[in-house]
């Protein structure tokens, strides 16, 4: 492909590509996103590809391997257009039937259809599935239209139109005004108004400026940025290009986690393609705008989610934050003005430029505009990537989209916003996904991780989990975070191991308060949030651990006992055989018994019992 030297050439190419695509009568969209990939979708993709060529259908049927479709729990997923036919949990063995029956004869394979859990009816189309119906998939739906590794697909789907629009007719200051008017706020955690950030960076006097895309996504339990960057890297690049044009940067970086090898690969391919097409480099599309992007791989440090630490890491240094007396929009990467936004924020930019700020601002609440991608995970039926309009109540996401708890259990809480966020109890589920309202409730939208917990999740154990994580990830530069988190973890460990004392709760609160007021960076300041929210909303659980030495959820090993329910045990000997400690005895077809002295509470018997006979008290 030769370089595109003008806007006309881009449009001409687009027309040609669309004509080429019109030749196909059918499109098979197979999800290659994070969830489906973990469910070994690659084998399905290979099998379908092989079948298509064996049955000589490659010129009529277009096989599109796309980014995340969202409904990860049901993966590997497939959608066939036209018709919006939705197949789930496909295995490579289904390939022959899908091709010969559905693609050739137009027959629907009942077995591969999704069953509505409430009406128990089979659902044919993706659009009818409750999980999708209640969402507004502004960004995620674009994943489905392109092969993640094809710039041609992206251009054919209308890609780089927004870039062409700004370069032709929108001056940098106007673009910034537009982003400000849209009300877009940072999707990475802080929720800072994006337009204001751009404006300050644009105003900062310097001959050299940078834009950075934060794709480090250090929050455990969150993968929306992986979903977007892996699935549609050009959308993110286009957003960065528009940002660079607006603030006056000639160089950009995508800072991406090394734990996301596919995201690294897809971004690399996208950057190379964009260079080849002349969409990165000098005089882009024949304009005066020159811009290039490099990729920096993160080293797996949570603290690098903090802007100054991230920039140190891009510079090849240890990722420690520094005091932000002067903001990074003025004194950032290599001490130059730098605009840092996360993946989802950048991905929103082309849409705002194309459809206008008022379109974007028409969605959402007073202070939180547009849509937000959430990673819905944990103890819930429908896990996956969900995109809803800002202001959607938590209840709608957890119960209507998420389908509620698994195996008839009771949902107890949702943890929103990762280690800096907080746990909210069910009676707060009417709160909307809104930056300001969730902050007031002690949690935060954060990057959008939503981990659902049920009656078998111990809130003290979850708090201990976050503190262990934060203790491990604390960079150690400032004392409040380094020592404060350590001491809080000590107290929580005491409580989970049966050594807790009532007066420790006051000390815990005092410590949390001190750390949040005195830590150096945002991550340190928010580190006590898991402690503060669980103390606020789940105090009775703390008291049960301290006063009764009991873990009501049955998680904290020191406070629980495993036993076999005689009414359910069939005497099948499975648990007895898997127990490596010889703690289970019993004869065939007779109730087995656990010797609590020998039991190490490893949980293997419970995971292997097919009759749900092993209980924890």
């Amino acid at each position, binding site marked *: 492909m030769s370089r595109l030297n003008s806007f006309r050439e881009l449009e001409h190419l687009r027309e040609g590509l669309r004509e080429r695509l019109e030749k196909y009568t059918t499109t098979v969209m197979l999800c290659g996103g994070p969830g489906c990939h973990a469910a070994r979708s690659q084998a399905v993709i290979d099998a379908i590809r092989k079948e298509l060529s064996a049955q000589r259908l490659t010129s009529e049927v277009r096989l599109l391997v796309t980014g995340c479709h969202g409904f990860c729990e049901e993966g590997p997923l497939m959608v066939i257009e036209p018709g919006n036919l939705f197949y789930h949990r496909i295995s490579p063995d289904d390939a022959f039937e899908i091709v010969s029956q559905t693609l050739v004869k137009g027959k629907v394979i009942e077995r591969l259809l999704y069953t509505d859990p409430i009406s128990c009816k089979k659902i044919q189309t993706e659009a009818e599935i409750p999980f999708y119906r209640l969402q507004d998939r502004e960004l995620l739906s674009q994943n489905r239209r392109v092969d993640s590794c094809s710039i041609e697909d992206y251009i054919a789907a209308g890609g780089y139109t927004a870039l062409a629009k700004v370069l032709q007719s929108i001056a940098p200051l106007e673009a910034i005004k537009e982003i400000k008017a849209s009300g877009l706020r940072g999707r990475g955690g802080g929720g800072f108004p994006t337009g204001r950030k751009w404006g300050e960076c644009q105003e900062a006097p310097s001959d050299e400026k940078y834009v950075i895309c934060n794709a480090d996504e250090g929050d455990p339990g969150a993968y929306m940025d992986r979903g977007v960057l892996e699935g549609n890297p050009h959308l993110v690049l286009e957003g960065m290009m528009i940002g660079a044009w607006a603030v006056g940067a000639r160089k950009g970086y995508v800072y991406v986690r090394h734990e996301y090898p596919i995201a690294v690969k897809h971004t690399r391919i996208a950057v190379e393609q964009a260079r080849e097409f002349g969409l990165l480099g000098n005089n882009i599309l024949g304009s005066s705008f020159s811009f290039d992007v490099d990729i920096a791989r993160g*080293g797996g440090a949570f603290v690098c989610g903090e802007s100054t630490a991230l920039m140190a890491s891009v510079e*090849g240094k*240890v990722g420690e934050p520094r005091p932000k007396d002067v903001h990074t929009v003025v004194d950032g990467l290599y001490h130059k003005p730098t605009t840092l936004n996360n993946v989802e924020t950048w991905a929103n930019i082309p849409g705002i430029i194309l459809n206008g700020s008022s379109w974007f601002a028409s969605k959402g609440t007073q202070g939180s505009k547009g849509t937000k991608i959430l990673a819905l995970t*944990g*103890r819930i039926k429908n*896990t996956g990537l969900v995109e809803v309009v800002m202001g959607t109540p938590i209840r709608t996401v957890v119960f209507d989209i998420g389908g509620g708890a698994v195996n008839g259990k009771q949902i107890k809480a949702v943890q929103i916003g990762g280690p800096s966020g907080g746990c909210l109890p069910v009676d707060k589920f009417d709160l909307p996904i809104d930056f300001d309202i969730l902050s007031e409730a002690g949690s935060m939208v954060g990057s959008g991780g939503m981990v659902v917990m049920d009656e078998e999740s111990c809130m003290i154990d979850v708090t201990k989990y976050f503190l262990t994580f934060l203790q491990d990830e604390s960079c150690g530069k400032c004392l409040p975070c380094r020592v404060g988190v350590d001491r809080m973890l000590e107290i929580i460990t005491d409580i989970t191991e049966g050594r807790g004392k009532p007066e420790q709760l006051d000390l815990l609160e005092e410590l949390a308060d001190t750390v949040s007021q005195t830590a150096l960076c945002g991550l340190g300041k928010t580190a006590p949030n898991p402690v503060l929210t669980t103390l606020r909303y789940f105090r009775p659980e703390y008291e049960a651990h301290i006063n009764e030495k009991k873990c009501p959820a049955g998680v904290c090993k020191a406070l629980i006992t495993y036993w076999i329910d005689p009414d359910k045990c069939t005497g099948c000997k499975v648990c007895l055989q898997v127990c490596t400690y010889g703690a289970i005895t019993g004869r065939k077809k007779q109730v087995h018994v656990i010797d609590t002295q020998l039991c190490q509470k490893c949980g293997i018997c419970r995971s292997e019992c097919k009759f749900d006979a092993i209980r924890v008290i």
Partner: protein
Amino acid sequence: MSTLTLEQILEGRRSQPNQLIEVLQDIQEDRGYLPNDDMRAVSQNLGVPLIEVFRVASFYKAFRLKPTGRIVLTICLGTACHVRSAHLLLDHALEQLGVKPGEVTADGLFSIECVNCLGACAMGPIVKENGIYHDHVTPGKLRRLIETIRHREMEAKSHV
């Protein structure tokens, strides 16, 4: 295992201290860990003091200073995996293999690593066997996985 020379990895990056993390990533990707000699050479070629190279290598979780086993079992300890009992998996793997995270079994076959999140949260708990993901893992499944790998490797060895 290693296919790239240090020369190839350093090409176009010499005397650029900002390339330190990228170079270390590439070395590790190729060799599985960061050998001391390579770090010395990186220090000289990029113009970064050796102590700084070690500081970066030990600061970031991504880097290993010791070789791994032939099979690296990476246990995801992200929040979503944790609430689905991933901690039991870690305890189980350590017990079954008799090593600590980062150590290699005596036969050189396994090492266990923990990771904060692999980004496949919906399918958790996740255990990665080198590049292959295993989803919805339970202690029982993990035990069978370890046994299967051991068996497979022994077969392969006896074939040779």
